[in-house]
């Protein structure tokens, strides 16, 4: 019995040792992203969502959330990782996506028979792009 417990104990200990190195880079990545984004951008996002809810209720919150997460955040992160400053990344993200994001959704809609589905797929592509830029450009 003691041997069994000891064996399982060893296995659990080994497993925790194995998992340790895999969690380290993930937390490093999060720390690195936190450093990139900064509390100012987080505050801006929270403030925008709060103000939109306060002024225009649930619909305001939903609209601004859609705009922030489909249009702004992915392009802001990409521009930031590519070396632009925070405020210029924010403003260029606003203007660069205002026409290009709906244009891409419009083109995708010729293949995918739903605007909503096209937008969601584009959003996933944007997230993949953020990851690719992070992994192959920014982290290097």
């Amino acid at each position, binding site marked *: 019995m003691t041997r069994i417990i000891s064996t399982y104990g060893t296995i659990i200990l080994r497993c925790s040792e194995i998992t340790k190195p895999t969690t380290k880079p993930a937390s490093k990545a999060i720390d690195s992203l936190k450093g990139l984004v900064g509390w100012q951008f987080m505050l801006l996002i929270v403030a*925008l969502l709060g103000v939109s809810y306060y002024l225009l209720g649930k619909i305001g919150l939903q609209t601004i959330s859609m705009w922030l997460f489909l249009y702004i955040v992915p392009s802001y992160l990409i521009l930031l990782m590519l070396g*632009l400053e925070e405020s210029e990344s924010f403003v260029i993200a606003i203007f660069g996506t205002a026409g290009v994001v*709906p244009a891409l959704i*419009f083109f995708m809609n010729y293949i995918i028979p739903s605007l909503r589905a096209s937008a969601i797929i584009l959003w996933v592509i944007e997230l993949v792009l953020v990851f690719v830029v992070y992994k192959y450009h920014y982290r290097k």
Partner: protein
Amino acid sequence: MGKNDLLVAGALFIVAFWLWTLPIQAYPVPFGEGDSVWQFTAGDWMYQNDRADLTIPPYLGNWYYGFNSILGPNIHEYPPPYPLNSALAQLFTNDRFVSAYIMIGLLSMLGCMSTYLLVRKFWGLIPGILAGFSMLFVMRNIMTYLWGQRGSVIAFNFIPVVLYTYYMYLSTDSSKEPAKKSVYLFAFVAVLASEYLFHMQAFGVTGIALFLFTIFYWIKERKFPLPFTKNPISIGLAIVIFLLITMPFILIYLGPDERHEIKLTNPERFLHWFKISDQEGYPVNVGGYPAIYFSYNDVYHKYLIPFIFIGALILLYRRSSKDLVLLGWLAAVYIAVHLDVIGYLNVGRAARMLLAETALFYAIIVVGLFGLLSFIPVKKKMLGYAKIALALVFIAFMLSSNARVAHSTLKDAYPPILRITPYQVEAAEWMKANLPEDAFVVVKGTISYPKIRWMLTYSNRYVGNDVQRFLDANLTTRDKAYYMVDYSDLIITGQQGPAQSLLQWEQEVFANSTLVYDQNNIHIWHNNFEVFRNY
């Protein structure tokens, strides 16, 4: 500095969002003139079908702008990505009106952000704040937004960012920061393509400004600034991306077939910035715009106008490469607002070009203010204090003048009676459920033209002033025609006299017709009537 700078931009954005969404906060019902209904309905069609292509529904295409000489009938007036912005807001909130109007307000207010970026990066934080802050209260932009020519307001907001990214692309040293130079190139392409998708006029002015700035920069630097030979792959790829995004919509812009005879009329206008006193309709209305649209006292302020001249003189005197951006833009706007003199545009379209002027003039005003300050021989520390003091005075001045007017205009815009009422919404929804899709409805009695058109949006049926023209052109038949007599507004506003005469007229005209709808003092008649107009 960089991250805190973002807080300033964010604060500016939040103030703008609060201010420019006041009309929809005050009363969550759509507002605006005919153009606003048209542009909203184009996006609304996408929302209702969860699909988008180059076409619009016949009830909208029959109204105006629906015919494209190349693509045929029922085609978008603007590239579909523009109305798709509001459709996406509708789709992700399942709300038909407020969400779309939040998106429209958000995009329309962005002049403050683009002006802030350009001035802040070129001339510092305080000038940037002042220029961006001033753009919140520009009455010309606010009025155009309220009336509904939102595609143009939004597109003209792009000019400072397009110029900024282009300047940064040209001025970034490719030997030191090759990657960053490419980022600016692709950012420039994205911003320019986006602008193109909103309105052609702004894109045209931007094109002239970019061309003139390139020439000025070339002369100043004594070498051609575009590195075609150094990084041809980047430039080639950027051109391909730009064409892929924009070219699918080129026929929309080429289709309306708006032609004017090219001839020189009244060249004396070249000596003025934008003379309206010689135009038809002056002083009440010129080219479809009321006099206030052209009033420099209202759009800027009489005390600020001298700084436009001072700022322009300082720019001409200094001629740094950053100054050349504003000088190129200034020359481009001058050309654009005089295109009516050579007959390329009518006065109404040329007047629309004045939207390109507001961000420019506020940037120049700020350059003038701080330029003058730099001529005063004081110590650097004192100059810093003087700048802060000047900024505080400027902000206080704006808050007590332009901001007050802008706030009351936005807050009180389109009171409930000038927006579609619940009774009219109910009637429109009944039409949607009960009338054939190709029905044509004439409305009489409703107190404003836009409200009639909003019933078109709510009902998904053609609703307007005149069905006779469709009958004359054999585009419909009498059995498809309906007539709405609407007393609801007259009763709400207590207009007994006009209501009585309307009743008398109704009894005469529809004596033998069938009353198909009778609710809330709104009647809809069908068959056996001879009047197909409301005038």
